[in-house]
């Protein structure tokens, strides 16, 4: 099997398995979780097949024809970066699915749960391996949707629905902007394929010099930030914790939220090396890092603490990927990539531990916990290892990547000079201090201290092995990567960094690398962190106070205001737009007609009214026309229905006289007969409607209506005068055909009738259909009376 097929299969396997999962469930019943685990394992194997070739610098690439008319191929691209993500996604996926076997109660809707998890995994794999940005976007949105479904797994809980809505609205809206960014990128490059762009230096230069550069960058970053909960978009992630804990571990810490980071890494070669990139990406990262780290203090939900920590850790990576100058476009890339891997291990582990704790204590409130180390020592050890790794304590893997973060911050500050030389490292240290504090809080609050047994169940114990092994495995990884970083660095980090920097990368990562400034900073971090931790509760209380006093100073508040307030505003708008009576709608129609009719009159008309007006008519015709207008005026002036109806039928009868004058005997006969019948029907109807309502014409209404109606009259007049100038030369009317052929071909002497039944008989067919419809419609109207009672 060639590697392209392997990767394609790895992407689609979870979808296929999700498709046949309902059938499998019939056989496997409650053990369906192992089916999902096996699927994830197969995907991992398929992805791992590509590792050796990628380590040697040979990327996997290939495509299948899909939508040639849009220039879109189904194409997959496996370089170091995507392989690393693929391994993380499927690897953590195995652990999560296995863990879920025990975590999810057998009474739950397991079929739906695993189906959605598998679909999520497939989407995530598809996203990271996509080379085509449209394809990437499709998988990107699929992860949003599956995430939405999984957050709202408990569909009848209001908080789940709230969290799911929030995540979907923010990530999918961000996605729409990102799509626009991709399209702008396509305008610049003319291709949808990222691999093509990456392999074409001149194209990258074009992008950087293009006038839409900033547009594309900002639009794409909005999508990435929304997905990775950065900047103002962070608010969805804490609420996403309503999902089952394995889902939070999988989606909202280890994989999906890293999609934004992935995207930033993916477009790094295209956009980095510019000031905009540094300001936007690093700026966003640093601000989010500090804000989220600080806000974590007042969280009492253990998953909430982890959510905020995830936001701030993702912001680390964001900041590092943003470190760039023109000469050195990728200062923090290796560090960020390494931290990305490490974060996936320890944060997933922490969530699984949180899941165990919540499962055993039946609460997620940290203020009700404490002293659990005695009841579950193994969990305690696992959790501590992971939390310390997050805090950056040696010899765990988090220490290594945090050192690299400090180093790259120093380097970036140095390259920039000025006040930033100190500000950037200082910000990095401050972020580290916050991280240290909340990491300690996690250990201390749950496991250490005194047991508050009044809130906790009597019998708490270690969970079963199925739930213990996955976090334990991750904890071991945390230690191993920390102690022997070179393996991971060689096989995973270096190819991934190479994929981003588009050149070979060699890293030297070791636990002890001399007494550097970075180490100094780490020591400062620890000291300051411990100092801060002593004030932890004070700060949390202060935050609560401030939040109570200034509730509007929060993005959540703005979100709720918008989402809850929108319907009211919209309803008010609709009430104004759509007042109800038919008259304003008619006025709108007529005004549009007048305005549109006036446009050509102003733009292209040479003379509005043609010169040769012909008032030369016999007097009786003039009198006839005058009578018609008079009768029509009568309809407007006469108040009583009966009079007005008589006036309007007078118009009809007079018009039939005009028809006679215009040599149209058929029309005249029809008009007289129709008018008769119509008048009778009209009279029958108004006999049943007593005239009670009488309109009071105010002066302003009268003036406005007269204005509109005279404008309509004038428009029609101008049009008619122009149109009756005769057929434009050199053309002639098709009527000649009817005159010439009605006897020889249609065998009829009355041309009008011949046209009606023969030349244009099809029109007549339509016309009698309309008559039938009127009959059927009237039947329905009459019958509807009994329905309404």
């Amino acid at each position: 099997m060639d590697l392209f097929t392997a990767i394609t299969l790895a992407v689609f396997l979870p979808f296929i398995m999700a498709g046949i999962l309902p059938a499998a469930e019939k056989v496997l019943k409650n053990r369906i979780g192992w089916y999902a685990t096996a699927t994830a394992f197969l995907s991992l194997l398929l992805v791992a097949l590509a590792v050796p070739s990628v380590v040697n610098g040979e990327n996997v690439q290939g495509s299948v024809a899909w939508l040639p008319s849009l220039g879109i191929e189904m194409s997959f691209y496996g370089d170091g970066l995507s392989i690393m993500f693929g391994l993380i996604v499927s690897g953590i996926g195995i652990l999560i699915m296995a863990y879920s076997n025990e975590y999810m109660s057998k009474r739950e809707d397991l079929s739906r749960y695993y189906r959605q998890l598998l679909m999520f995994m497939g989407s995530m794999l598809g996203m990271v391996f996509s080379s085509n940005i449209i394809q990437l976007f499709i998988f990107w949105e699929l992860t949003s949707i599956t995430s939405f479904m999984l957050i709202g797994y408990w569909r009848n809980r209001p908080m789940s629905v709230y969290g799911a809505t929030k995540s979907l609205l923010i990530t999918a809206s961000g996605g729409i902007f990102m799509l626009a960014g991709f399209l702008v990128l396509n305008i610049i490059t003319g291709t949808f394929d990222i691999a093509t762009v990456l392999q074409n230096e001149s194209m990258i230069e074009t992008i950087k010099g293009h006038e839409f550069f900033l547009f594309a960058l900002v639009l794409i970053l909005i999508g990435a930030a929304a997905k990775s909960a950065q900047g103002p978009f962070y608010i969805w992630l804490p609420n996403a914790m309503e999902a089952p804990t394995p889902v939070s571990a999988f989606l909202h810490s280890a994989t999906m939220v890293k999609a934004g980071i992935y995207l930033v890494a993916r477009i790094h070669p295209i956009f980095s090396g510019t000031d905009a990139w540094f300001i936007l990406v690093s700026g966003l990262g640093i601000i989010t890092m500090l804000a989220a780290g600080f806000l974590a203090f007042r969280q009492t939900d253990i998953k909430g603490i982890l959510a905020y920590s995830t936001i701030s850790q993702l912001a680390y990576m964001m900041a590092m990927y943003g470190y760039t100058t023109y000469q050195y476009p990728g200062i923090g890339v290796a560090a960020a990539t390494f931290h990305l891997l490490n974060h996936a291990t320890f944060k997933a582990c922490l969530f699984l531990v949180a899941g165990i704790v919540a499962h055993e204590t039946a609460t997620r409130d940290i203020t009700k916990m404490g002293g659990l180390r005695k009841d579950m020592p193994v969990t305690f050890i696992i959790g501590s290892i992971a939390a310390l790794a997050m805090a950056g304590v040696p010899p765990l893997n988090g220490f290594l990547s945090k050192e690299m973060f400090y180093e790259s911050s120093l380097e970036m500050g140095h390259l920039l000079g000025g006040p930033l030389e100190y500000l950037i490292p200082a910000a990095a240290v401050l972020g580290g201090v916050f991280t240290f504090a909340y990491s300690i809080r996690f250990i201390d609050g749950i496991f250490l201290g005194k047991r508050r047994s009044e809130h906790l169940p009597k019998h708490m114990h270690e969970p079963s092995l199925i739930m213990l092994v996955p976090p334990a495995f991750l904890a071991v990884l945390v230690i191993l990567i920390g102690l022997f970083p070179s393996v991971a660095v060689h096989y995973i980090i270096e190819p991934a960094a190479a994929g981003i920097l588009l050149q070979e990368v060699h890293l030297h990562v070791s636990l002890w690398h001399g007494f550097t400034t970075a180490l100094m900073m780490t020591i400062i971090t620890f000291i300051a962190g411990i100092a801060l931790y002593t004030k932890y509760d004070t700060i949390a209380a202060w935050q609560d106070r401030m939040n109570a006093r200034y509730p509007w100073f929060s993005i959540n508040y703005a979100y709720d205001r918008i989402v809850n307030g929108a319907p009211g505003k919209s309803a008010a708008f609709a009430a104004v737009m759509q007042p109800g009576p038919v008259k304003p709608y008619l006025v709108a129609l007529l005004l549009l007609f007048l305005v549109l009719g006036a446009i050509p009159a102003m733009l292209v008309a040479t003379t509005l009214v043609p010169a040769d007006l012909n008032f030369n008519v016999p007097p009786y015709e003039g009198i006839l026309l005058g009578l018609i207008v008079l009768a029509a005026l009568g309809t407007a002036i006469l108040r009583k229905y009966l009079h007005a109806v008589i006036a309007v039928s007078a118009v009809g009868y007079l018009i039939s006289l005009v028809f006679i004058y215009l040599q149209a005997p058929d029309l005249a006969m029809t008009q007289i007969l129709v008018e008769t019948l119509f008048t009778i029907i009209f009279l029958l109807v108004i006999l049943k409607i007593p005239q009670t309502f009488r309109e009071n014409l105010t002066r302003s209404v009268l003036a406005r209506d007269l204005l509109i109606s005279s404008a309509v009259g004038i428009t029609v007049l101008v049009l008619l005068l122009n149109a009756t100038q005769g057929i434009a030369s050199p053309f002639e009317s098709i009527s000649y055909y009817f005159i010439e052929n009605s006897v020889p071909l249609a065998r009829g002497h009355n041309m009008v009738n011949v046209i009606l039944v023969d030349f244009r008989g099809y029109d007549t067919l339509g016309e009698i259909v309309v008559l039938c419809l009127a009959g059927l419609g009237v039947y329905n109207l009459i019958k509807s009376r009994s329905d309404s009672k």
Partner: protein
Amino acid sequence: MNNTLLSVCIALLFAIGTFMILRRDMIKVVIGITVLSHATNLLIVSTGAFLGGRAPIITSDDAGSPSGIIFTDDLASGILAPVIPEGTEMVFVDPLVQALTLTAIVISLAITAFLLILCYRIYQEHGTTDVSEIRRLKG
């Protein structure tokens, strides 16, 4: 060729009809629609392409020889039919517009009849003929 007075009359009918459909009384609105339909019928007839003197009914006197009019298009050589030889005089009025008007009359009769019954039903349901009171659907 053109008949300005007739055009002015039609335009006036249009203006009056428009004024009527803007009234608040439902029945008056329907009357306005009827006036507009009348005006339209008259307009269609008045746009007849040619105005001979006779109604479009062929009598036995007219049977004559073919007139040499070309009725087949030939886009390649730029012939857009019908092409009329010089000196052909038309004694009839345009029959096509009359046929069209007839169709239009029938259709507007059908719709107006439906509309009238509808008005009656609305009066039964809403108890008013004031269109500005018939506004349960809004917002």
